[in-house]
């Protein structure tokens, strides 16, 4: 049975819903993850309203909310905490990672290594559907008695153990997400090791593939540890164990009749052992995409390819040795803090190396300011701010003051939103012609880019100022505390920026759907790129390549002296 035959015979369900084709699964991931991103963003809009105008009724939609969440349209603290926990969980586990790994990895990793599909197509399909079920379970928890999880996305016990039933659902849902990620990472690792086209040696892999490969390894090793932590928490909640509970807890005046003996800090160690590598899971796919776009639009090879690859591997390894820098003030041994400060400062070096290599890549280039390039260029200084503001948080004396303030929130949103998310959006404009054989509208793309970039900074930069004034995170109403009043005037501005950010996503969403059907048809390989994904038709058929591509050179042979064209595809025999 040939592949063409297969697609003809299978019906709609097999073709678009339970498809085994990595490209269809990739697109399923893309649309689901984008929906979750929008939803998570919607949650934070409600929160920003409450922060900007505490105690005022939410306009327009406030009346729709039930009285258990927002009587008279005024948000209750329990609702605020639910939104906060769900915003974090959805953005990280159901939005960015599925977009960066599930979508980009699934769609482009096989294409870039010249493979017909992933190594285990059925496992790939199961990975998407377990993720989907996990996501639905997570959202359904809002309808449980007591509402969704409300102990923050970190779910520290004992608070999470005594929380309402939404927390149990959170843990179950995380189990689905972790299983999905396990299926995915096994697939990515085996595919990358085993299915590279002939001639595609490790040092000829595009940076994007390296990013995905290291990411998959991080997911493989880090997630099981959170799974263990989640199972222990689940047992504490439902089976009466005390892994995280010491003896003699008194909750709202009643003594908990438990044997105790457990440690609240144990969970934090297990959680951050996952959640720090998770940061690199968020950022490495973005770094990969930015590398592709920069090489393509400077029309020259990336500066220091080997340094970048080595830095990615080093980041991956070291990311398992820095987790406790989230716990400097948790009450763990102070001597441990010293060790983790040193490893944290060390891990900044490979990040600096990658960023400098990208900036040096501009030198001597012939820069084309196409739309994807704008996103990639914006990534550099934005990720720079995110990275630099990490220094005072990893540094013991300053972390004493800044820990758990809005400074932290600003820091990681610069990394994950203005950094990663901007790069992921750029990747979409870059690869849209590949996926659909059409181009997205450039004018509306520019509107989307500038609007998004400015509004994002409008939300996140004031957070550094608020953090410096000492404003703690996760406060339902910051104005209750005197030290937060001096920077409260920034909150309405942040709310306005967030609303405008929403407005500027509409050109993107409309552009995406209109271009799917009506976009201009580009020539083959419109960006004149060198990597293998452009060696097959757009959109690629089932099985991708008509014949097995052979690779003769590195990934970024642009502007090679003495050649007529300024690019030589990897599969071109010279």
């Amino acid at each position, binding site marked *: 049975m040939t592949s063409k035959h297969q697609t003809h015979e299978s019906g709609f369900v097999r073709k678009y819903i339970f498809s085994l084709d990595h490209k269809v699964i990739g697109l399923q991931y893309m649309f689901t993850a984008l929906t979750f991103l929008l939803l998570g963003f919607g949650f934070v809009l409600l929160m920003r309203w409450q922060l900007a105008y505490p105690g005022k009724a939410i306009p327009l939609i406030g009346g729709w909310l039930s009285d258990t969440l927002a009587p008279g349209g005024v948000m209750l603290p329990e609702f605020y905490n639910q939104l906060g926990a769900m915003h974090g969980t959805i953005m990280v586990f159901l939005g960015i990672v599925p977009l960066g790994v599930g979508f980009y990895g699934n769609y482009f990793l096989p294409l870039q290594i010249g493979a017909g599909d992933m190594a285990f197509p059925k496992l790939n399909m199961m990975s998407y559907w377990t993720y989907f079920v996990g996501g639905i379970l997570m959202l359904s928890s809002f309808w449980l008695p007591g509402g969704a999880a409300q102990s923050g996305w970190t779910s520290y016990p004992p608070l999470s153990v005594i929380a309402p039933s939404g927390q149990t659902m959170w843990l179950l849902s995380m189990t689905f997400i972790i299983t999905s990620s396990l299926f995915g990472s096994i697939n990515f690792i085996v595919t990358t090791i085993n299915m590279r086209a002939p001639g595609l040696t490790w040092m000829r892999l595009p940076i994007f593939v390296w990013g995905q490969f290291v990411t998959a390894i991080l997911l493989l090793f880090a997630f099981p540890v959170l799974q263990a932590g989640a199972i222990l928490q689940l047992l504490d909640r439902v089976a009466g164990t005390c892994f995280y509970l010491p003896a003699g807890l008194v909750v709202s005046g009643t003594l908990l009749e438990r044997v105790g003996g457990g440690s609240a800090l144990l969970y934090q160690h297990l959680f951050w052992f996952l959640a720090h590598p998770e940061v690199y899971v968020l950022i490495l796919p973005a770094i990969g995409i930015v590398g592709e776009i920069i090489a393509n639009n400077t029309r020259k090879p990336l500066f220091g390819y080997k340094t970048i690859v080595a830095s990615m591997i080093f980041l991956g390894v070291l990311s398992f040795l820095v987790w406790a820098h989230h716990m400097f003030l948790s009450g763990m041994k102070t001597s441990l803090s010293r060790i983790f400060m040193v490893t944290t400062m060390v891990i900044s070096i490979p990040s600096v190396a990658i960023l400098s290599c990208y900036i040096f890549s501009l030198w001597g280039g012939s820069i084309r300011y196409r739309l994807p390039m704008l996103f990639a260029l914006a990534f550099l200084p934005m990720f720079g701010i995110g990275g630099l503001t990490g220094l005072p948080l990893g540094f013991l004396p300053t972390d004493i003051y800044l820990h758990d303030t809005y400074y932290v929130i600003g820091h990681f949103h610069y990394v994950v939103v203005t950094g990663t998310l901007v790069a992921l959006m750029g990747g979409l404009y870059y690869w849209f012609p590949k996926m659909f054989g059409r181009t997205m509208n450039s004018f509306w793309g520019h509107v989307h880019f500038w609007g998004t970039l400015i509004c994002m900074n409008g939300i996140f930069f004031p957070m550094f100022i608020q953090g410096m004034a000492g404003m703690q*995170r996760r406060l339902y109403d910051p104005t209750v505390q005197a030290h937060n009043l001096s920077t409260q005037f920034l909150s309405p501005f942040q709310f306005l920026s967030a609303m405008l950010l929403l407005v500027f996503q509409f050109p993107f969403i409309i552009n995406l759907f209109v271009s799917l059907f009506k976009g201009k048809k580009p020539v083959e390989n419109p960006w004149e790129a060198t990597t293998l994904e452009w060696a097959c038709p757009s959109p690629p058929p089932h099985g991708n390549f008509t014949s097995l591509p052979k690779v003769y050179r590195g990934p970024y042979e642009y502007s090679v002296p003495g050649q007529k064209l300024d690019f030589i595809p990897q599969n071109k025999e010279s």
Partner: protein
Amino acid sequence: MIDPSNYTVGLPIAASTYASKVDLSLNILQWGMVAIFVIWGIFFTYCLVRFRSRNNPSASYAAANKGGALSFLPDVMVLGFEIWLIFFLGLPIWAEIKETFPTAMESNVVELVAEQYAWGFQYSGDDGLFAKRDPKQISSGNTIGLDANDPNGKDDYVSINELHVPLGKPTLLYMSSKDVIHSFFVPEFRVKQDVVPGMRVPLWFEPTKTGRFEIGCAQLCGLGHYRMRGEVVVHTPEEFEVWKQEKMKEKEI
């Protein structure tokens, strides 16, 4: 009432002995960050203009491999900056704030008991000995659960949401929690420490100003996290003595 002029855009006033050291580290780091960002930014902007396709129609293949060891200059500079920071600021200041504690003799010792959503403070009275606390004896009149049978507790007194301390003497807090994790945070003192159930975490500070300063909870502890606030009241030594006597008299009645 807390003086609103304690707070502006930027850091609050510094009111403890080690606050200035934290501020110094923060300033050095922030200006270092700005310097790195500006240097990067200038180079970046120069490249964006100088090497745009209009100004540089054909890219240089060789540029990707030029530079050699020089390209590691940013890494080396950042590494050097960080090593200096760690050894000259990070470790010594950390040791001073979190690892060396004043003796009980020379300081004002207070037991802190956090709960959803209040701060309880237990003082030892004249004998310097604290009564044990028993979770079984917690009631609305005895929120921190002082053990009524402990003779050391005769002169112990308690204040809720107000920590009274004298000027000119370090205060040593032993912190524990009844229910969930809280975090003791006084912005003016530049001090923060999680309060963990099942643990007894020590913390010290020495105020340099009299007045009232805010205690906030910095770790999500439930619905009332945002309103879990208290105040540190810093007295002159004489005033502190007066307050203490009043408190002990209240107890006898």
